[in-house]
């Protein structure tokens, strides 16, 4: 972006907000917003602690497992829905309902069904991420060039060949977009899970810090979480751009 003839670096808006944060913090308007500098000092204090690293490990584990299942189940289901009219009619209403449902309200039910352990947190994470992955994979498949399908059939492709060698790749730009949004939703899912199901991981830290009004700790952990989510999502956006060249020419 160029303002008054100056080229601004990519994260310029972040710098503005950081400055504003610091000023508001320094003014001491509310205990809720400590100065950013204090938060950053706290952040480096917290990072090496055992409590933080255990929390990071617990959260990362549940998050990655949840995303893994969302991807491994969501992509094939979405592709099959895009491919089969029958399956689509059958499943689409449910996918749409769950996409917009307040999943947080379902967590107590999941706890009754699956207990209070990591398993339930992983399931919650998957449930947050999977629907958009399904919908996007489905959308990707539905706009495949028909002649690619006919081409593969004419050369004798089996159903499995077509799925793995045509449908998946042709839908890849949309699939990656779905995974990217799914991952962001999974971050929400894992934290909500850790807050509501069993107080572990980052959820536990948030709980601890906010209950004790340790706001600079609270913000420090939030910044770590944001940075992690942002890097993953940027990485996926990078992959999306890598396949962009053929999105237009399918």
């Amino acid at each position: 972006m160029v303002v008054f003839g100056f080229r601004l670096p990519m994260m310029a808006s972040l710098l503005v907000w950081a400055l504003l944060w610091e000023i508001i913090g320094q003014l001491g308007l509310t205990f809720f917003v400590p100065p950013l500098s204090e938060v950053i000092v706290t952040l480096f204090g917290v990072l090496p602690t055992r409590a933080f690293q255990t929390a990071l490990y617990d959260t990362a584990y549940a998050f990655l497992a949840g995303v893994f299942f969302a991807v491994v189940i969501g992509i094939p289901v979405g592709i099959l829905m895009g491919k089969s009219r029958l399956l689509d009619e059958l499943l689409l209403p449910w996918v749409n309902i769950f996409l917009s449902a307040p999943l947080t309200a379902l967590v107590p039910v999941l706890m009754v069904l699956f207990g209070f352990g990591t398993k339930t947190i992983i399931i919650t994470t998957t449930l947050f991420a999977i629907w958009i992955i399904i919908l996007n994979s489905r959308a990707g498949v539905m706009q495949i060039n028909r002649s690619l399908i006919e081409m593969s059939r004419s050369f004798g492709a089996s159903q499995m060949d077509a799925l793995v060698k045509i449908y998946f790749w042709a839908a890849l730009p949309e699939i990656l977009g779905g995974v990217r949004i799914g991952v962001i939703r999974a971050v929400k899912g894992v934290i909500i899970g850790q807050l509501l199901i069993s107080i572990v991981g980052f959820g536990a830290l948030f709980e601890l810090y906010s209950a004790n009004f340790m706001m600079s700790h609270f913000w420090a952990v939030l910044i770590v979480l944001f940075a992690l989510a942002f890097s993953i999502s940027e990485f996926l956006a990078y992959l999306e751009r890598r396949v962009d060249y053929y999105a237009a020419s399918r």
Partner: protein
Amino acid sequence: MVMPQTDAAFRTDAVPAEVAVSARNISKTYGEVEALKNLSLEFPRGQLTSLLGPSGCGKTTLLKIIAGLLEPTSGEIVVNGKPVKGPGPDRAFVFQDFALLPWANVLRNVAFGLELRGVAKSEREDIAEKYIKEVGLAGFEKSFPHELSGGMRQRVGLARALSVDADVLLMDEPFSAVDEQTRRKFQEDLLNLVKHENKTFIFVTHSIEEAVYVSDQIAILLPRPSRVSEIIRPTGLRDKDVDMLRRDPEYLDIVDQIWASLRSYVE
């Protein structure tokens, strides 16, 4: 089957060549639309037959039925004596819009037919290399389709169809998406292919000139009822010098004659 002979210039073959593909009483309806009605046509082995006719008369439909991609409502296709039940290794399709995998390079695209047939990687890439050279794309093995011109993309599509070594090549307006110069070059290359590969070519086109230029046999399809109205064999032209062909009086006569039978349906 009726084969009206309206002019002495159109010689029917005295000795019928061996038939590679025959369409027997093919009908195809899409819901209300009757695309083909009781169409019969024979395709001699080692020759190029064009399907020529106005838009919407069912050329693509017939080609896809022969390919086994569509089922006829009634009638049957026989290829090398066997009735067609679906796609098979004896036929290969060249698509109007090329149908290349945009995420795969030229080498993989050309080898893709063989890949689907389970040929080992090194073997299929050797075969693909050979046909990439044959269609004049040597050096572009690692390029992607979006880096190629329309004409080059169709060469990839052609190399893919050739590399599976099918008896019958089905081509649906393969040159319609390329520019005029490239098109002429393609037509010459196609004549060479027909001469040197012992394959049966079935070729759909809109262009009368193109049909007369490349064909051993031209089947004219007319809409409603969509069946073969006329078969023309410009056999005299095949022995003539390719470079002179477009100015040859016989060539021009045949083009005029076909135009005369088609124009009433265009107006």
